[in-house]
């Protein structure tokens, strides 16, 4: 008798990075004002470093938008349909670069406690699960 294959067992489980790695960030949007001084550092960064940033990260779509009479903002859009918004108000150019690295390195997932989560596995254990019915009877 042929063993039945359950349809659910033929599904594929996501494991980004296992065989091929797809970067999670897809778009980076800079929004700043043309006139207000709070956007000064952001504008300086855009004029000097934006091209090298785009060349170093060819997988990211980089957009610059106007955000008139508001504080400057950096938005990152990710493959999991979430976005992260970081204000750039009051930051120096070095700090702006740190925020950009933060968004580029992230996966877009919500911040969750990671202290105790060392290994997250969907693979079943190689050694199997102990069963009292299939083990040697203990002898005193």
């Amino acid at each position, binding site marked *: 008798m042929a063993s039945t294959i359950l349809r659910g067992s033929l599904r594929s489980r996501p494991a980004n990075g296992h065989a091929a790695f797809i970067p999670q960030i897809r778009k980076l949007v800079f929004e700043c004002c043309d006139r207000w001084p709070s956007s000064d550092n952001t504008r300086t960064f855009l004029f000097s470093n934006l091209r090298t940033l785009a060349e170093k990260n060819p997988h990211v779509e980089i957009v610059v938008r106007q955000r008139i009479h508001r504080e400057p903002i950096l938005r990152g859009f990710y493959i999991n349909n979430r976005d992260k918004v970081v204000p750039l108000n009051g930051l120096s150019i070095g700090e702006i670069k740190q925020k950009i690295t933060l968004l580029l390195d992230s996966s877009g997932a919500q911040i969750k406690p*990671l202290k105790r989560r060392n290994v997250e596995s969907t693979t079943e254990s190689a050694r199997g699960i102990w069963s009292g019915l299939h083990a040697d*009877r203990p002898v005193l």
Partner: protein
Amino acid sequence: MLGRLARGVPALRRALHTGSQPNSTTAALDLIRSQPSHYVVANFVGRKYILAPRDLLTVPRPRDVQVGDVLTLDEIHELGSREYTLRGNPTISPDRVRVQATVVEHTKGKMESIFKKKRRKGYQKTITHKQPYTRLRIGDIEIPISSS
């Protein structure tokens, strides 16, 4: 007498079950490779983890590691399958087993508040801290066939 008989039987059953012991590392690896799924006990940044393919390993962020980098685990203490285990002394050499891990992301954990106080001294402060972490995806466990 029955008790003595019962004590003798499990040893006999165990001998029938396992078969002959392999006499070389290559033979042991052949036995392990013949089984469908494997696990590995590897050391990473000073800590040991039991890892299988497709696992997501979260470690405190090491320096000089970029997202997308592929790292090879070179301190593998144990390689095992359902019925066989090979333990290194202290590690299995990297040309016998190969496990790679891809850096998937750099994140931060949840915000933790640490409250410090010395009573009757007017000293108290709250420190907020977010630990940076790196998440790695474990690749397949490769046991190359050696000619020796």
